[in-house]
């Protein structure tokens, strides 16, 4: 059992596409020992998922692989399909990112698990069914006998991922490949799934190849880390070594860009410990950035009489009609003052995006009132409404969908001018667009390019330029950086913060990432299931939360420091045990 369960030597993968050959992986060598977790980290396009697929022999048809990859002594590159089929699901199995698409929607989950069992073991249908129930129990699905006959759509995202994991461990594989297993899940669910995977790996001595971009997950779960950059492994080592004392320049920059959640441990007196931990390891602690917001607050304090920029009063939103209507928001009230940044946080389905859309007038509230700049948005019509909306800038999440691919960058940015300043001469408009592009630090030459030719971070900056071209008093940013790699995220956040300091607009910042909100917002509103759970100054609320929910939310965020994270994990699990809570997704 001491032999490596996975051994990859000098792996190269090239994709042949319509526009030529694209090398995705070059000269990658790594190994996983039984019972060990190796995290493969890197930003998008680094080739980490391709390595995982190659190890499963699941590369798509247009890929050519070279080098050697062997699972439990069997070579998978160039192996016959029949041989691979015997290997997959038995010796090596995989957990994918999106549990919703990894399961067959029309087959009961018990049957799906039983199928995996029977694929590799000559057992009767009844035995397979009973081992499916056992597996469901093992992955922490409550009431497994009854749940086995449920369809995937009847389960929550976290439960579905548990089912996927049950299928993956059905035949006690020696190697488990998990490709971003928690990326589609909320943080509290993520923490539970990671706990589960860790326990399973420890119990059965399974080796795990964990593919992720999240340094917090790495710190929480991995024993060793391999950092990938542009298809090559640039640094490998034990997790403490790589995350706390990175040697490669890229790893250092990557870790420096990860926003860190500053937390007060439940044990108290955590602040100095954290500062020491963070300060000792990272060249530039995240705290330096969170201070940037402070001068703005003082500037705002000078004009207390001014009407709030956004005010939602007892807003309720329902989607659908009748008894099956979803209550997206219930009696939500929030206020955003001039020049202030308000962070709106919560898990998926908490209503944070809906609240932002209500403020923008995109969603009509069923009851309650919305006012922008002191004027009721619900009653404003025609020209008055347009005048009101001229003071608003918007940046949404998806860098691809945010810009019309049929327009040039300049046209995208100029759109608000065309809407609100119809008489503006073309030359003046061009000048204004150039000026704003410069503001968001994009080279002027990009103006005539199409959005397709831009990277994700550049596109979000174009969106930002478009939002700012009319000098708005309010910027609504709905997860503006969630789709970006951490290094790019930092640049975009820096640009927003700088421009806010300069131009003084108020910002409604919606995010699921507590660390980002902590560094960015002065006040924070925590939402849960359509209601406001808690609100207050960011510094106070996120370090000393008043409600249990916020406390659990914060405890579930993994920090990219393995030592600190281990401490937080034990504290979180102790708190869960103490609360005697269900604790299961």
């Amino acid at each position, binding site marked *: 059992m001491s032999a490596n369960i996975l051994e990859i030597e000098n792996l190269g993968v090239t994709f042949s596409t319509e*526009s030529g050959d694209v090398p995705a992986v070059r000269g990658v060598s790594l190994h996983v020992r039984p019972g060990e977790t190796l995290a493969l980290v890197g930003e998008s396009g680094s080739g980490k998922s391709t390595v995982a697929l190659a190890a499963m022999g699941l590369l798509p048809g247009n890929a050519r692989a070279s080098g050697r990859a062997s699972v439990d002594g069997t070579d998978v590159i160039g192996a016959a399909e029949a041989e691979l089929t015997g290997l997959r699901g038995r010796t090596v199995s995989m957990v994918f990112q999106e549990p919703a698409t990894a399961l067959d929607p029309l087959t009961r989950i018990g049957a799906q698990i039983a199928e995996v069992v029977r694929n590799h073991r000559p057992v009767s249908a009844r035995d397979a069914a009973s081992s499916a129930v056992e597996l469901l129990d093992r992955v922490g699905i409550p009431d497994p006998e009854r749940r086995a006959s449920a369809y995937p759509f009847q389960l929550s995202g976290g439960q579905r991922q548990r089912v996927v994991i049950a299928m993956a461990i059905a035949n006690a594989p020696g190697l488990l490949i998990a490709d971003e297993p928690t990326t589609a899940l909320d943080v509290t669910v993520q923490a539970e799934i990671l706990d589960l995977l860790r326990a399973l790996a420890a119990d059965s001595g399974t080796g795990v190849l964990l593919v992720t971009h999240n340094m917090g997950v790495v710190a929480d779960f991995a024993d060793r880390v391999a950092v990938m950059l542009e298809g090559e492994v640039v640094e490998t080592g034990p997790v403490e070594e790589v995350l706390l004392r990175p040697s490669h320049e890229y790893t250092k920059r990557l870790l420096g860009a990860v926003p860190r959640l500053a937390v007060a441990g439940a044990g108290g007196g955590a602040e100095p410990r954290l500062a020491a931990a963070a300060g000792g390891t990272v060249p530039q602690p995240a705290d330096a950035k969170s201070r940037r917001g402070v001068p703005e607050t003082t500037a705002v304090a000078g004009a207390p009489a001014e009407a709030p920029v956004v005010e939602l009063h007892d807003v309720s939103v329902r989607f659908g009609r009748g008894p099956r209507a979803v209550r997206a928001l219930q009696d939500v009230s929030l206020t955003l003052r001039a020049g202030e940044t308000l962070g709106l946080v919560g898990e998926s389905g908490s209503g944070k995006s809906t609240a932002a859309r209500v403020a923008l007038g995109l969603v009509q509230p069923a009851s309650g009132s919305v006012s922008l700049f002191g004027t009721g948005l619900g009653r404003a019509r025609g020209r008055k409404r347009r005048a009101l909306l001229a003071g608003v800038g918007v940046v949404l999440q998806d860098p691809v*969908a945010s810009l*019309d691919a*049929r327009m040039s960058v300049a046209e*995208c940015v100029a759109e608000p001018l065309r809407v609100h300043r119809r008489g503006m001469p073309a030359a003046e408009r061009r000048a204004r667009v150039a000026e704003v592009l410069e503001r968001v630090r994009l080279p002027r030459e990009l103006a005539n390019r199409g959005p397709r030719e831009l990277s994700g971070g550049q596109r979000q900056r174009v969106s930002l330029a478009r939002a700012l071209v009319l000098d708005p008093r309010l910027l609504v940013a709905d997860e503006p950086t969630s789709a970006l790699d951490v290094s790019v995220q930092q*640049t975009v956040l820096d640009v927003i913060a700088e421009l806010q300091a300069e131009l003084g607009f108020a910002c409604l910042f919606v995010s699921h990432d507590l660390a980002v909100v902590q560094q960015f917002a002065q006040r924070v509103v925590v939402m849960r299931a359509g209601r406001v759970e808690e609100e207050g100054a960011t510094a106070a609320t996120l370090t000393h939360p008043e409600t249990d929910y916020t406390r659990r939310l914060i405890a579930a965020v993994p920090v990219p420091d393995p030592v600190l994270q281990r401490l937080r994990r034990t504290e979180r699990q102790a708190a869960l045990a103490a609360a005697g809570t269900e604790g299961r997704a």
Partner: protein
Amino acid sequence: MSAVLQTQAPTLELATGYRLSVRRFARNRLAVAGLVVVVLFLLFCFVGPLLYSTDQTHTHLTQVNLAPSGAHWLGTDAVGHDELGRLMFGGKTSLLVGLAAGLLATVIGTLWGAVAGYAGGWVDAVMMRVVDAGIAIPALFILLVVSAITTPDSLGLILILGLVSWLVPSRLVRAETLTLKSRDYVLTLRAIGGTHGRAIFRHILPNSVSTIVVAATFQVADAILLVAYVSYLGLGVQPPSTDWGGMLSAGLTAAYSGRWWLIVPPGLAIILVVCAFNAVGDGLRDAFDVRGRG
């Protein structure tokens, strides 16, 4: 500033959308052949008469029913028109009416579908029930009834054809609009107070152009076929004007007396052009990567 990490700067010279589309189209041999056939027929019908000039207005009773020869490459018909010249002359009508009617149907369908999809709610429901009702009645039936009542000229045919065949494109465009209207750039525009017209004409329609172009190609093919139906039944353009359908109809009696040159050329022309337009549509669909034909 924290150092800007441009690690994944796109180093690859990726083919741009436009060139990629052309390449995909070119890979579909049938589509390229179709395009060639369409272009050749357009040249034949519109430039051909300049090189091969014939009299298509007067009858020449001395030269009726001649077999193909050096003077009349495809012979002459029952009233002495040169058949090759008539093929060009009739093709002008067929192609012109087909193209115009197909485009008219696409324009109406596009606007109808875009407005229905964008407005949503009861407006959408009412507009699409109109489409459903229209699809439930066979277009050919309406076409024949109206043609029988009005005996239309070319313009009339274009209008009638356009008005009965916009239903399918409207459904396609509505479906496209439903996805496009919730795109972030449309939401952003609405959030800053942009008008609905701007959302439809500047964002939704330009982004559905691939669907629209593909639909238009199939519409043109269908319209050419419909014109042929109507004229074959004698309800289309009236003599001395003609089109390929009318020529087929006129030549039908002659077919039994072995005068194949009156029936094979127009029949072939219809088949070739309709197949060619369909092939081009298929190629465009590949090139744009659009799904389904509706």
